[in-house]
């Protein structure tokens, strides 16, 4: 997947991730989310057959895709993609709570809050120096920066086993994973 110059994205070194979920908690704390709502999630995958077993963890929030399905799907125009840095921003004031974005996002990034009647998602902690998840990770496994630079990192890939095809929305994220997790 080609990376545009201006696009900001995440880099997650899954070989460092210990599944401590500090990033999830920091995200929930920053965004004031109640139980069950996880704008950032750490998913655990395991497989293989003894003795060749494997497990890996993928920390993920919104991937600020270059061709975001949420922007195209939202009937209320609550989503927009910023021209200057490619961040996909959700405006809760425009959200009507139809949840269509939760259906069309391949990564389950938008999270519907039943009590609030609106969707919330990662806006990359706009206004902060670094996103809460990046600042909180004790393993320094999450970074954020220009996608063009991130894509050049050693081992950076977006072709992961059992992941939605990157061709769907061109996610602005790159992972470093062990070979078992590669597609």
């Amino acid at each position, binding site marked *: 997947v080609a990376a545009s110059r201006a696009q900001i994205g995440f880099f997650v070194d899954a070989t460092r991730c210990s599944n401590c979920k500090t990033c999830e908690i920091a995200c929930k704390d920053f965004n004031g989310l109640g139980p069950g709502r996880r704008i950032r999630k750490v998913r655990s995958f395991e497989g293989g057959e003894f003795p060749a077993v494997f497990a890996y963890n993928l920390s993920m929030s919104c991937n600020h895709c270059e061709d975001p399905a949420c922007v195209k799907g*939202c009937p209320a125009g609550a989503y927009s993609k910023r021209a200057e840095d490619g961040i996909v921003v959700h405006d809760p004031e425009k959200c009507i709570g139809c949840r269509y974005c939760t259906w069309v996002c391949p990564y*389950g990034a938008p999270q519907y809050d*039943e009590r*609030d009647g609106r969707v919330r998602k990662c806006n990359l902690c706009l206004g902060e120096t670094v996103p809460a998840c990046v600042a909180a990770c004790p393993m320094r496994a999450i970074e954020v920066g220009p996608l063009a630079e991130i894509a050049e990192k050693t081992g950076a890939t977006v072709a992961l086993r059992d992941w939605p095809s990157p061709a769907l929305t061109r996610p602005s994220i790159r992972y470093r994973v062990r070979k*078992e997790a590669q597609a």
Partner: protein
Amino acid sequence: MREWRLQNPHGHECLCRSTEWPLVLFTLATQLACGLAAAATVFDAMAGAAGAQPMRPLAAAIFPLIAAGLLGSLLHLGRPWMSWRAVANLRQSRLSREVLLTAVFAALALAYSACWWTGNTEGRLILGVATSAAGIVAVWASAAVYKTPTRPAWNSGWLPASFLGTTVLLGGVTPALLISWAGNAGILRVFLAATIAGSLLLLVAAFWMLADLSRCASGTFLSGHSAWLGCHVALASVLPVAIAVRLWPNGTAEITPLAVWVLPAVLAGSAAGRGAMYWLGTRYEPF
């Protein structure tokens, strides 16, 4: 050694509500209204303005049905008072287009139902054709909303086939059961044929869906909705065909009492199938 595989290929259960009853009501009401608009137009064309009077109560109900569906769909929204924004992204969003096209259908249905209610026959046939066409476009737009690659359970031809089948079935079976057909056996048989065609289309859609899902979902996943699907096939496919086949030979008989039991059963079967559709599509996250 076996091939690597994930132990949990379907991801974890989504916390969202998964049956979506307001959307079941909305889609079924839209499809019933569209079917009735087409049925009233056919009746009008075949029997003439005077002969079509038995259809008057059903034709007058088209607009209240679509209005009830639209109002019911508001219950799906987290913030229904903001529903006016649902057409704010017509350029890109299929959902915005569905809302707009359904509103156009509702506006035409209002005029068409009013024609029948007041007994105004001038231009009624043309208005009926326009209302039916708008209804079919609205049903098609509704099916297009669910065609997304992130929901494998919906991203297939069975879903538009199911929506179309429900429209044809309800448009055929409702007048066939609710109207006295004395002297109109020929028109009754048109509606019975529509009933059979819609039922068979729904049956094809149900097996098409099962074939699709068996390729991408586990047995546990499928068994969770087998009761609903069985109810759908029995009440919305088998029962209408059986009734249509029984009524076909004596098309002039009084059949209205049957409606007391059969029509609610067909509607319940259609609702069960639609509920299963939403359950399948929203219960699990994409990965």
